[in-house]
């Protein structure tokens, strides 16, 4: 079956991406523009959440932000404080980076335990675990996804998107193993309509991109 504009639009996490450290006005202009689309969520960095949550909610839209992003290097209490603050400020979803150093050091139990207090904040919200697929072997990718599934994440997010391109194999690997039990969001390098359609065919049920308007408008 052909993938339609709406099929793509409604699974996009739209971000401002390429603009580093935008002003409040720039973020607000971006958020206003997303109101005209049917994206899954609009993404802003944590500081901007409280300035934009009300506007999005008043228009029936949702907001996501990022935790321990983009290096996965924040300590447990800081991560928890960041997550609590984001939810208090109005975030509907969280994309949370796992402790990638601990994971690479083989401390899988620690990676899991460390995220438990954050997961207690979930209360039915969609939380996605960023697992840095690009840094991991195929087996490590599946191990990270197992941890995410055990913790109760609904989604894994392949990569942070900074300078990394998500492959179709990374996406299908999660889809094939976990099916609907753990969904996969493709993040990194999705720039065109074709990229998006290919990711959907590989099994992605969310797509993070800063090319959201361009992709949808090209249908």
């Amino acid at each position: 079956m052909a993938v339609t504009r709406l099929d793509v639009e409604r699974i996009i996490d739209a971000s401002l991406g390429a603009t580093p450290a935008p002003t409040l006005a720039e973020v607000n202009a971006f958020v206003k523009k997303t109101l005209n689309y049917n994206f899954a969520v609009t993404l802003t960095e944590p500081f901007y959440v409280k300035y934009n949550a009300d506007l999005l909610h008043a228009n029936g839209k949702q907001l996501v932000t990022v935790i321990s992003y983009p290096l996965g290097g924040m300590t447990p209490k800081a991560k928890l404080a960041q997550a609590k603050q984001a939810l208090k400020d109005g975030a509907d979803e969280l994309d949370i980076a796992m402790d990638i150093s601990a994971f690479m050091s083989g401390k899988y139990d620690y990676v899991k335990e460390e995220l438990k207090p954050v997961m207690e904040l979930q209360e039915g919200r969609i939380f996605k675990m960023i697992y840095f697929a690009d840094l991991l072997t195929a087996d490590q990718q599946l191990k990270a996804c197992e941890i995410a599934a055990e913790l109760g994440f609904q989604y894994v997010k392949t990569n942070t998107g900074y300078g990394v391109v998500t492959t179709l194999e990374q996406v299908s690997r999660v889809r094939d193993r976990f099916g609907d039990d753990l969904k996969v969001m493709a993040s990194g390098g999705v720039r065109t309509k074709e990229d998006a359609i290919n990711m959907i065919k590989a099994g992605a049920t969310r797509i993070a991109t800063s090319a959201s308007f361009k992709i949808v408008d090209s249908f």
Partner: protein
Amino acid sequence: MNKAELAKYIDQTILKPGVTEEFVEKFCEDAKANAFASVCILPTLVKPAAKILKGSETKVCTVISFPLGMDVPAVKIQEAKEVIEHGAEEVDMVINVGALKSGEYAINDEEISGVVKACHDKGAILKLIIETPLLTEEQIIKACELAEKHGVDIVKTSTGFSAMLPRSTSVDDVKLIRKHVKAATGVKAAGGIRKTAAMIEAGATRIGASAGEAIINGL
């Protein structure tokens, strides 16, 4: 300047995601042998680094809200407290660049004063990363004023997070900062530093480098 004198300028740095504890231990042993000023690592690696560096002249340095800087003040303060608990003696915090560029200086006042206090209460020093590649000359001067107002120990040019930045730190950045902070305030040049001697000549008192050994050996 001889090798030992030059080593005192170097913050030996590794801030990429997924560095293992084993790697960091070796990295710290090498830094200690070279008597670098500090080792600069992500917060999750402060504990293993502190184990190696405790009692040596090489300090444990880490980064707060890195590399985006877009966290609310309370989260940055929490993160600073936690890394100091874990053994950090030097804290490099990214300023909220979006707030600075938006003229929302009250946000910068709150985060800088809060993190300076968290550091100084525990005998740690604060370096404020102002991200010169994203700022105008006027904004760099404003950031220096904010640093001085709150008693920041060292002003650091940039995160060096090249995936997001339009350029490296320049000699002119260092000169401009030097001109607008007190003589007792340090200046750290970081982010794609190639000409160490020129940076020191321009007023840098620290150099952030991933290749500290090559620098002191004049390679």
